[in-house]
C-alpha cells in the first residue's frame, strides 16, 4: 500500500492563506497543497472592500489575489465553501465541515479574525451590518446612495474609510466614537484630530465621547441609533466597526497555545511543530519593540506567510519587516509604519495646509518608534528605514523643512 504524498493543508483562504500557498511553490515545495476557505470565492484582497469595491470601482478580477487558472497551474487544491472543523494532531488529520478528511504533513492555520459584535438592543435589526467579506460589502453598497444615511459605530480605520466612501456615493454619514477621538487605539492625537476635521469638512458628522445605548427600528429595520445621553441619531443603515476578534477556537480546541491570538514565533510556528499559524489570528513576536502583539494587516499576512513557507521548505527566514499599514480616505493617502508603544513625543514635519505632513513618534531617547504620513510618500519610505534602524533623530532636525528627509534617514 502506498502512502499519500505529503500534503500541506492551509486552513483559511484569505490574504495570508492564499499567499502561503503561492510562497510554498516559489520556495520549492513539491508535494500537495490543499487550501481550505469558508467563503465561496478564490482568495481576494480585503482592503478595497471599504474603498474601491464599495464605490463600484473594482471588479471581481481585480479583487482576486490571483486568477483561477493560477491554482490549477500551481497544483493548489481548492476546497472553497467549507472550513476545517477539527484537528486530530496525533493522527495529523483535519476534518472539513463538508465531511472530507485530509491528512497533513504540515498544517498552516490562516483563520483570520471576525468583526467584534456588540450586545446592543436592536443589533439584530435589518440594516445593521459589519464588514469583513464581499457579502458584507455588497450589502453595505446596496444601502448607500443619495438620500440614505449611514451611522458608523466605531471610529476606527474601517469605519472612517466606509464613511468616506458613503459620502462619495452621495449618502449621509455619521461616525459615533466612544473614546475622546477617532482612531484612539491605533493612531496619535494629531492624526486623529486632522482626520476628524477632514471628515467634517466633507460632510461626515463625527461625534466623539459618545456611548451607544441601542439601535432603534421600525418594522424590523434600523431607523436610528440612540445614545446614552438620550440623543437620537436618525439613519437607515448601521455599520458596526468596533474591531475584530481573532478566530482561535479551532486552535484552542486542538490544545495549541492561544493568548489573544494563536501564539507563534518568528518562523510562524505554533506550540505544535507540525502546525504553523499566520495572519490576523496570530499573537506574534514584535522584535523591534520587545513584546508580542496581534497585527491586522496585509503586510503582516504576507510576512508571516513567507515565514511559514520558508520554515517548511528549509529556507532561511525572510528579512524582518517593520509593521506597516495604509488607508485611503477621500483624496488622502495615509501610510503608517512602526508601532508607537511608550511614545514620549510626537514631532510633526510638513504642513497639512500645504498638502502633506508626517508625525514622527519618538521615545525618551529620541528613537523613531513609528511614523504616520499623510500624502507624504517620501517621508513614509524614509520613516520606515528610521524605524527599522531604531534611529535617533533630534526633533528639530525632523521639523526642519530645509532638511531633505533623505539626509535625515541617511
Amino acid at each position, binding site marked *: 500500500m502506498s502512502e499519500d504524498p505529503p500534503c500541506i493543508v492551509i486552513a483559511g483562504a484569505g490574504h495570508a492563506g492564499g499567499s502561503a500557498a503561492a510562497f510554498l511553490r516559489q520556495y520549492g515545495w513539491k508535494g500537495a497543497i490543499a487550501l481550505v476557505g469558508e467563503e465561496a470565492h478564490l482568495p481576494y484582497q480585503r*482592503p*478595497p472592500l471599504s474603498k474601491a469595491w464599495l464605490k463600484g470601482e473594482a471588479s471581481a478580477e481585480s479583487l482576486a489575489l490571483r486568477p483561477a487558472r493560477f491554482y490549477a497551474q500551481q497544483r493548489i487544491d481548492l476546497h472553497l465553501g467549507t472550513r476545517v472543523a477539527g484537528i486530530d494532531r496525533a493522527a495529523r488529520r483535519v476534518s472539513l465541515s463538508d465531511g472530507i478528511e485530509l491528512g497533513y504533513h504540515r498544517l498552516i492555520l490562516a483563520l483570520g479574525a471576525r468583526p467584534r459584535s456588540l450586545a446592543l438592543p436592536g443589533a439584530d435589526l435589518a440594516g445593521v451590518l459589519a464588514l469583513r467579506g464581499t457579502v458584507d460589502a455588497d450589502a453595505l453598497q446596496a444601502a448607500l446612495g443619495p438620500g440614505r444615511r449611514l451611522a458608523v459605530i466605531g471610529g476606527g480605520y474601517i469605519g472612517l474609510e466606509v464613511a468616506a466612501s458613503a459620502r462619495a456615493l452621495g449618502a449621509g454619514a455619521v461616525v459615533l466614537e466612544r473614546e475622546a477621538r477617532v482612531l484612539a487605539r491605533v493612531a496619535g492625537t494629531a492624526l486623529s484630530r486632522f482626520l476628524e476635521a477632514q471628515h467634517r469638512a466633507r460632510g461626515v458628522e463625527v461625534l466623539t465621547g459618545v456611548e451607544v445605548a441601542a439601535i432603534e427600528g421600525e418594522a424590523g429595520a434600523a431607523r436610528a441609533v440612540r445614545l446614552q445621553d438620550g440623543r437620537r441619531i436618525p439613519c437607515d443603515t448601521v455599520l458596526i466597526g468596533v474591531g475584530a476578534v481573532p478566530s482561535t477556537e479551532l486552535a484552542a480546541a486542538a490544545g495549541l497555545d492561544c493568548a489573544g491570538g494563536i501564539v507563534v514565533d518568528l518562523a510562524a510556528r505554533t506550540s505544535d511543530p507540525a502546525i504553523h499559524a499566520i495572519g490576523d489570528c496570530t499573537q506574534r513576536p514584535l522584535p523591534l519593540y520587545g513584546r508580542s502583539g496581534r497585527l491586522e494587516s496585509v503586510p503582516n499576512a504576507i510576512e508571516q506567510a513567507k515565514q511559514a513557507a520558508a520554515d517548511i521548505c528549509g529556507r532561511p527566514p525572510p528579512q524582518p519587516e517593520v509593521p*506597516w499599514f495604509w488607508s485611503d480616505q477621500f483624496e488622502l493617502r495615509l501610510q503608517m509604519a512602526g508601532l508607537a508603544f511608550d511614545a514620549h513625543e510626537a514631532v510633526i514635519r510638513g504642513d497639512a495646509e500645504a498638502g502633506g505632513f508626517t508625525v514622527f513618534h519618538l521615545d525618551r531617547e529620541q528613537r523613531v518608534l513609528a511614523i504616520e504620513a499623510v500624502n507624504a510618500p517620501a517621508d513614509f*519610505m524614509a520613516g*520606515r528605514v528610521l524605524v527599522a534602524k531604531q534611529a535617533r533623530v533630534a526633533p528639530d532636525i525632523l521639523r526642519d523643512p530645509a532638511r531633505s528627509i533623505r539626509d535625515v*534617514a541617511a
Partner: protein
Amino acid sequence: MPQVTYIEHDGTEHLIDVEDGLSVMRGAVDNNVPGIDGDCGGECACATCHVFVDEAWLARTGTPGEQEASMLSFAATAQPNSRLSCQITVTPALDGLVVRMPEAQH
C-alpha cells in the same frame, strides 16, 4: 498576448504572457514569479514591486508619476531605471519588455 521577461536577481528568467491592460506587477504575481510581492495590490502604496527596466525599454515604459517617484526615492537599491511595476501597464507596444528584480524589496 504581449510577453514580458522577468529576470530574478540570481539570473533566473521567466518569460510570461501578460494580458493587454494588466500591470507588469500583476503579470508577475499571477504567474508566481518570485521577487515581486505587490502587498498593496497595485495602489502605489508599498513599493514591494520594484523592478529595473531594461535600458532599451525605458522610452516606452515612460517615467514615474509623482507619488511613484517619491516612493522610489527611498526604495532599497534604487537606480535611474527603477520603476514600481504596478504602475506600468502592459500594452502591445511593450511586447518583449525586459525587467530585472532587485535583490530584495526592502
